[in-house]
């Protein structure tokens, strides 16, 4: 079997194993979905009128439109906490030692996790998106091409955060530590343009808010779905995604290839 065929076949086997875990024990994934959905409902129904006034809108329906792109990105940040936890749990299992002594594609264990997580991220985004539509979110002017680009952006952003989360999972001694180290991934959106525009934040803080990975991604998604100004955000977002993905990939594979304890 060629190396590529071996990689595809073994990764597919590992993917099925991870999906089986996710299907058998969905509570982790579902719990992680609660935070973005709760924040969405909280900010729309409780804070919505004030928030809407803050962004110069007329009522809370304007704020629904504003907040949803950020909530979708936050959903990805939350879902990948599950990735970090399951990678860390997995690495402490004896079965990983077994995999290491088998003539299988070396990277398939991690690739299985990454693709499984990507599918979970996209499923979570669709679920949260459905909640958003149910409470009145509508894309104003997205063409099919823009929808496709939006989907691509969500997938790319997911991939970047997943590789980082895999690295965090590999580096954590146990599931609790993994959950803690991945926590910033769901908190970062709070200091992005997800809930309020970055230019309404204190001046000294604006550069941090504007250039952290979430803001350019959120602004690009907003632009694609709602027709707001994207500016240079699209390439900053892509740059961030590629950089994070490469960094996470190198970190994860280096950890995996090290001798286990």
């Amino acid at each position, binding site marked *: 079997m060629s190396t590529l065929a071996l990689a595809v076949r073994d990764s597919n086997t590992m993917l099925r194993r991870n999906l*089986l875990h996710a299907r058998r024990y969905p509570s982790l994934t579902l719990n992680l979905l609660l935070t973005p959905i709760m924040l969405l409902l909280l900010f729309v129904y409780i804070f919505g009128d004030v928030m809407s006034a803050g962004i110069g809108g007329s009522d809370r329906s304007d704020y629904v439109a504003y907040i949803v792109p950020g909530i979708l990105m936050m959903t990805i940040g939350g879902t990948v906490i599950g990735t970090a936890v399951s990678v860390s749990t997995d690495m402490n299992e*004896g079965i990983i030692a077994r*995999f290491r002594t088998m003539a299988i594609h070396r990277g398939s264990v991690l690739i299985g996790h990454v693709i499984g997580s990507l599918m979970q991220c996209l499923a979570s985004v669709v679920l949260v998106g459905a909640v958003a539509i149910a409470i009145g979110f509508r894309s104003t002017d997205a063409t099919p091409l823009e929808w496709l680009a939006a989907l691509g952006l969500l997938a790319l952003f997911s991939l970047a955060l997943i590789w980082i989360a895999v690295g965090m999972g590999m580096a954590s001694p146990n599931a609790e530590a993994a959950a803690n180290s991945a926590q910033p991934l769901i908190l970062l959106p709070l200091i992005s343009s997800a809930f309020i525009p970055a230019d309404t934040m204190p001046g000294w803080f604006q550069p941090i808010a504007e250039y952290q990975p979430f803001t350019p991604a959120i602004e690009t998604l907003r632009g694609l779905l709602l027709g707001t100004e994207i500016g240079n955000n699209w390439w900053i977002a892509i740059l961030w995604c590629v950089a994070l993905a490469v960094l996470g990939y190198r970190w994860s594979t280096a950890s995996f290839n090290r001798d286990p304890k």
Partner: protein
Amino acid sequence: MTSTTTHSLAIAAKGLHKAYGDKTVLDGIDLAVPAGTVFSLLGPNGAGKTTAVKILSTLITADAGDLHVGGHDLAVAPQAVRAAIGVTGQFSAVDGLITGEENMLLMADLHHLSRSEGRRTAAELLERFDLVEAAKKPASSYSGGMKRRLDLAMTLVGGPRIIFLDEPTTGLDPRSRHNMWQIIRELVSDGVTVFLTTQYLEEADELADRIAVLNDGKIAAEGTADELKRLIPGGHVRLRFTDPAAYQSAAVALREVTRDDEALALTVPSGGSQRELRSILDWLDSAGIEADELTVHTPDLDDVFFALTGSTDTADVPAQSKETVR
């Protein structure tokens, strides 16, 4: 090394060395395991047994040593080694979140068996290891013995010719242990090479063709069980008394004995043959000594083990060749 010896040896190690920081775990050990035999690495906890298995099964790398498994150089072709071996580690290597059957099918997929072949192999092994009833339950719900059986069943999916078993019976109850021994014997009769580590002397004695005693990172002795037993002085007869006065007078009458005042026991050197035993009994009769308990102790691996490893901890090591004569 000539090519013929490389081929006849399933596992060959020369100068295997491994250290963690400044702590040397394996200090240049040599191993040679002919194909189709059972080799047992025997040693107390912390002797380096597991480290040796981890290295030879490609899980971790050695610091130094010329290592061949299945004719392949570990440093050059680890993937070829992996294709030849199966490993059942000390800690259960099953996926607890999925069922026993799913674990088996996972192994079949990773060995690239076709769907039907995978199903057949999984079903056969589940049957052979008495796991059919539990097949649809998550492996995390299995008992220790069942997990160990599933673990070994998973190892056998690819039909490995060389199997590493790291303390396969540690923590098992006596019945499960005997089951596991039976399974290992069956493997051997199929011509598989087994590399077994154990801290149970009885186990090495039962199963292994050759035994190496590992102590403190070095091979303290190597040979067949009989060869090892011959390394240490012969056996003895132990006389135990309940009456201190009888003990005292016996100790005075029999001068060539070793005294154990606390246990009120005397040890008389003896090879354990019928003739020697009769002469001791005659001698006791003529001296008018009547011990409350007489045990014949022939040298066993325990003695070898303790003599070689300098340990006196007998806590979980059952002595084997004692017969009580009342």
